[in-house]
């Protein structure tokens, strides 16, 4: 194999694995961005939600020895309950104070992180979530590509399209957009704004849960994993624009490709610093993001 072939093959694997990362990040960042766009709530516990679903799923299969279908149902129920409790107990009463919400959700993220260390059936080690999509790796142009990553990409596209249609066509989706545009006017039209914000948070939780099923099964879980995903989501949302669905997806794929590119050609170290460089540049030169409209003061 000569050099050109080698580079072409490398670029193709960057494309493949970058798409996987982009799909995962778009699912995570979409929920984060939606909650901020609709409710004005910056949910620092978003990474904590991911942590919670991953651990619940892992415990269901490994510790409580449930079937895969049962585990999925239990995880969905758990995340919905967590979202409702978070909204009712924390976000709704603290809506008027920005610092309050930030500190409370920050504390919540730490609460999840410590909880998984303390629970009697859990510990402070790194574990592997069992793979739920079995199958031999398929070979694409000389690259071994695990089958579950194919499902990640396809599943993420389907979920994002469903969310997009839901937001733009369904009645509830229209209410969500109305609250995002002007909360008071929406309330005057008879929309229960608090309910809508709760629905948005539940949607973000469900997106996180789908990330777990589509991508997380087969990856590792460890107590401090939430923070990295939170920072990635934040970088993506800053890049794409707060509260914009196409912006989040675009930002996710840009970051996914560039991270993979960096780790292939420059070094994995640089891939970790990459989001911070994007955040700094975007905040200095275009604070509203690529596709965002809201002015950031």
């Amino acid at each position, binding site marked *: 194999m000569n050099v050109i072939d080698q580079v072409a093959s490398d670029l193709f694997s960057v494309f493949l694995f970058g798409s996987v990362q982009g799909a995962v990040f778009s699912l995570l960042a979409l929920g984060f961005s939606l909650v901020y766009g609709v409710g004005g709530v910056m949910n620092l516990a978003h990474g904590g939600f991911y942590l919670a679903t991953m651990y619940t799923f892992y415990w269901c299969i490994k510790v409580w020895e449930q079937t895969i279908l049962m585990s999925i149902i239990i995880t969905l129920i758990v995340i919905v309950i967590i979202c409702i409790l978070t909204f009712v107990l924390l976000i709704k009463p603290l809506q008027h104070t920005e*610092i309050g919400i930030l500190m*409370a959700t920050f*504390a919540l993220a*730490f609460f999840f992180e*410590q909880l998984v260390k*303390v629970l009697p059936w859990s510990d402070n080690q790194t574990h592997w979530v069992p793979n739920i999509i079995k199958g031999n790796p398929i070979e694409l142009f000389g690259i071994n590509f695990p089958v579950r990553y194919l499902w990640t990409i396809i599943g993420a596209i389907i979920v994002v399209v469903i969310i997009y249609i839901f937001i733009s066509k369904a009645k509830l989706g229209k209410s969500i957009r109305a609250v995002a545009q002007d909360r008071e006017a929406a309330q005057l039209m008879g929309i229960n704004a608090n309910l809508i914000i709760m629905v948005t948070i539940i949607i973000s939780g469900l997106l996180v849960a789908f990330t777990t099923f589509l991508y997380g099964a087969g990856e590792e879980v460890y107590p401090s994993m939430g923070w990295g995903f939170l920072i990635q989501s934040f970088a993506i949302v800053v890049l794409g624009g707060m509260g914009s669905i196409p912006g989040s997806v675009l930002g996710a794929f840009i970051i996914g490709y560039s991270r993979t590119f960096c780790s292939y050609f420059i070094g994995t170290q640089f891939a970790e610093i990459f989001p911070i460089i994007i*955040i700094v540049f975007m905040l200095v030169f275009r604070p509203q993001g690529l596709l965002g409209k809201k002015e*950031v003061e």
Partner: protein
Amino acid sequence: MLTKIRQLLSIYKKSIKNFFPSLKAGTKNIIKDLPNQLNNVKMRIFTFKSGLTILCLIILILFPIFPETEYYISILMYAMIFAILAASWDFLVGFVGQISFGHAMFFGISGYSGALLIQNLGISWFASIFLGAIVAIFLGLFIATPCLRLKGPYLALGTQAFALILFNLMLSQKELNITQSFTDLDYILQYFILMGFMIISLSIMLIIVKSKLGTIFKSIRDDQICADASGINTTKYKLIAFIISSFFAGIAGGLYMVKISSVSYGNFLPLYSFYAIIMAAIGGLGTITGAAVGSFIFFIIQEIFSELFSASGGQMEAFANYGPVLVFALFLILVIRFADQGIMKPAVERLKELFDLLMGR
């Protein structure tokens, strides 16, 4: 782009120029008023608040007299170090309104660079603390420059992102870890030196908060647009606030480095930012002393936890190690939800009412 950089440079220059004269004038005034002040001191000691402060200090000073307290003294030393960190966080958030979730990076970078200086240049640990704090100031300026355009949640997450990235970078640089004892002082002497550091740092922050500079900070916190409109250069004063806060966080980091006599990625743990927040929230935002008291309460409760659970072994051991943070996370949520003034402030007020009643006022 170039003009922007030039503007920023001029702002730096101006802020540094204005900062030192104001300090000079402050010290001059203090020296001029000395006889008056001394007269006032007598009066002040017998008020409630200073009486309480002096009582706490006397307890701290007399603590080493009791026998076999070496272990508890080391816990108190940690509490003092974190009191400085929590107070520096409270200074930035409670008085200037700039939320930072990344104070661990000032804490870590100062200790790290201080240890590197000791190892490579062989300077004394005392100088390394201040040099490390100066490095922390530069990091603070570097971070504040892009982040000052941000407000509220953006600033908070931006600083947190910086801190996490620094932590991740350090996680892989295992060859930079240093373990050596930086000082051979007796532990009781260390205890008193730390106490001196804590008292001086807290008093400097309290003096700044009560000076004209502090009034400007509070005006920025309460209404930035209004402050802008009344002719205050908010960017300059926010930079000054970042400088002061990162300096004291750096001092705390240097002291921590000397205390645990090693540096590693562990100095950058995001958990330390959270500690600072918890401690300040227990004491109530916007009270420097409250943050310090919160630090002592935090460490005492942590100690109680490990006494209760570590002996039983097994899963309880995990609870002894991680339980305090779990409980404090829950506690912080409850404090923010139900008592936005913190725990200390109302408690002290109740105590003061009782005191007034007893004194017959």
